[in-house]
């Protein structure tokens, strides 16, 4: 329905964007071609969604060397859905990838919903009305180890670090919310948009894959301060989360930390992809709320109100702690979460990961406690050096008393859809065919 050329739209000037925004739905209803914008409003994954700064007609381009939804700032809502895939051969897998690409191309750009004979079920769930708005939607597709392991024709192409997630010392993994052949990470300004996208994808791919589990989450929307800069959003422990993330608007840094390059020794098809880690980590919030304030700060390693490091309590969230000046951990305990996660020495640079988490709140446990926690998502070019190494360092940390990782998995995020004639996973399919 949409001209694929529209996907490769140019970046618009701010003025023009405002103008188009003013036109609102009419602009979308008329010609869609020029409306979508390529620029994003915030520049780092860590940044919280900013109140009133984003609009339903904002969109994130889905074409590029890398998939969208990784280095873009998190919108307010995110979700990971995991599927089992049925494809028995390269042809069937290609069909699935092409179908997903087509849905992504439509949903992230938007447009009118097809109107069918009322005697037929509608083409669209209708959650967003007759006109689908992009609403900053991104859909990011990644593959699990089982997809490769269970298919001899695909197994030789498995990324070299991709593996089934195994238990860490504090984990209580629930098989019903772990692993999967394929994940779809869906992020957007509003929950309606993420759910609409999920239902669309399920409907479009029912013959090719089966939903296994999903977890939704969100990031609090922050009103920027007088200086225009928004603070990091808080997680359910009440601490700012995302402060010390690498700068996702620095392309060189992202090449080093996130994206698999030709030098990484991965299968050639995998270049431009990344390792995705999903961890559903329950927080024992009642217990946390009964923990002394000072102890909470020592467990995390930051001040709770401002997020400043403990060795400069009056400083700013983005000030850098000086661990060299604090070898005994008098200010920042040696086993504080942030100190274990990143010792901030030369050696730990190799273990940088890009965190992109969402808070989740699910309901009540059988014991009458809140089932809340963190939908922890991170990306890295090397799974071993990234998440697995960092998590090993965190094993046994004092924070564990308040955490229980219960689900998730390891996945390989496919390289991007290069242009309108390409489709997601085309390099893998070509490799599987021996082309």
């Amino acid at each position, binding site marked *: 329905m949409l001209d694929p050329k529209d996907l490769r739209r140019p970046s618009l000037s701010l003025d023009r964007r405002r103008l188009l925004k003013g036109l609102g739905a009419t602009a979308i209803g008329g010609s869609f071609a020029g409306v979508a914008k390529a620029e994003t409003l915030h520049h780092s994954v860590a940044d919280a969604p900013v109140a009133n700064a984003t609009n339903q007609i904002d969109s994130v381009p889905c074409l590029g060397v890398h998939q969208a939804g990784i280095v873009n700032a998190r919108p307010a809502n995110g979700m990971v859905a995991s599927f*089992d895939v*049925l494809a028995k051969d390269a042809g069937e897998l290609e069909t699935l990838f092409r179908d997903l690409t087509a849905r992504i191309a439509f949903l992230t750009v938007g447009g009118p919903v097809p109107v069918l*004979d*009322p*005697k*037929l*079920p509608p083409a669209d769930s209708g959650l967003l009305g007759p006109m689908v708005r992009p609403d900053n939607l991104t859909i990011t597709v990644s593959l699990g180890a089982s997809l490769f392991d269970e298919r001899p024709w695909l197994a030789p192409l498995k990324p070299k670090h991709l593996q089934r997630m195994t238990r860490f010392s504090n984990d209580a993994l629930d098989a019903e919310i772990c692993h999967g052949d394929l994940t779809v990470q869906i992020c957007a300004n509003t929950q309606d948009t993420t759910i609409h996208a999920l239902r669309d994808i399920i*409907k479009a791919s*029912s*013959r*090719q*894959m*089966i939903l296994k589990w999903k977890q939704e989450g969100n990031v609090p929307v922050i009103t920027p301060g007088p200086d225009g800069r928004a603070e990091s959003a808080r997680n359910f422990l009440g601490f700012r989360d995302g402060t010390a993330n690498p700068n996702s608007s620095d392309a060189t840094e992202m090449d080093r930390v996130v994206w698999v390059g030709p030098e990484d020794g991965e299968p050639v098809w995998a270049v431009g992809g990344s390792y995705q880690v999903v961890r559903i980590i329950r927080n024992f919030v009642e217990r946390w709320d009964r923990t002394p304030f000072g102890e909470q700060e020592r467990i995390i390693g930051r001040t709770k109100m401002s997020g400043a490091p403990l060795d400069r309590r009056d400083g700013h969230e983005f000030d850098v702690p000086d661990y060299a000046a604090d070898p005994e951990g008098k200010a920042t305990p040696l086993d504080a979460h942030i100190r274990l996660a990143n010792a901030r020495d030369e050696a730990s640079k190799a273990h940088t990961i890009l965190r992109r988490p969402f808070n989740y709140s699910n309901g009540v446990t059988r014991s009458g406690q809140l089932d809340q926690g963190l939908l922890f998502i991170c990306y890295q070019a090397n799974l071993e050096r990234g998440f697995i190494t960092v998590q090993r360092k965190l094993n046994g940390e004092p924070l564990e008393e308040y955490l229980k990782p219960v689900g998730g998995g390891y996945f390989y995020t496919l390289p991007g859809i290069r242009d309108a004639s390409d489709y997601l996973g085309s390099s893998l399919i070509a490799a599987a065919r021996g082309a």
Partner: protein
Amino acid sequence: MRICGLVGATALTLILSSGAFAQEASLDLVEPIAEYKIYVSEQVAKLVEDTTAFTAAVKAGEVDKAKALFAPTRVSYEAIEPIAELFSDLDVSIDSRADDYEKAEADPEFPGFHRIEYGLWEKNSTEGLAPVADKLLADVKALEGRIASLTFPPEKVVGGAAVLMEEVAATKISGEEDRYSHTDLWDFRGNFDGARKIVELVRPLIAAKEADFLKTVDANFNTVDTTLVKYEDGEGYVAYDKLSEDDRKVLAAAVNTLAEDLSTLRGKLGLD
């Protein structure tokens, strides 16, 4: 039988000559509906016969015999579930599950097939089941009577094919229907046969226009068949927990796809 013989030829000629049957459907559907009614009547007659033997075994305290008769008795019910469900009071008392009751299995209100199933498998006993058996038989006979005097609504008949698949997709593929006996594959057989019967009856009406659609639907039914065949055991099927994870996925996808596709059947026949 008379109706279908008479109207059949006429309706078919009409369809073939007019070609514009998508919007005005009622006449074309007379024959399939009449035939479907015969099918349902046969199934429900069999259900009454089988339930008579099954409940007799329960009342005689013959646990093994009752266990052997449980799954085959249900197949005919499962095949006509979309019609049985039109009488929701009977559907509840014949086929509801423990989850539908506040105290689950312990709830004195928990009736029907699954109450007896629970006693037979979990308690290995027929104790206290005689009144449940009497009620079940009475309900099944009442169902037969009500079906005999029912005018089959065309949209319910045609929509029934999708309904059967929706039920499998939503609450059966998990193995929760026959959770004590694990005889779910028998139920599946009934559900798939029931859905396929409906497709077969309306096939002539859409064969020309919807060849691709029918091809996909047939392919998915065949997937189901070839998967179920692997689990045949004597007259019936092995326990549901013997179903491999791979085959469960294959069945789940086939069911979801059939539900998607068959949801368009009513519209394709011009029914609201």
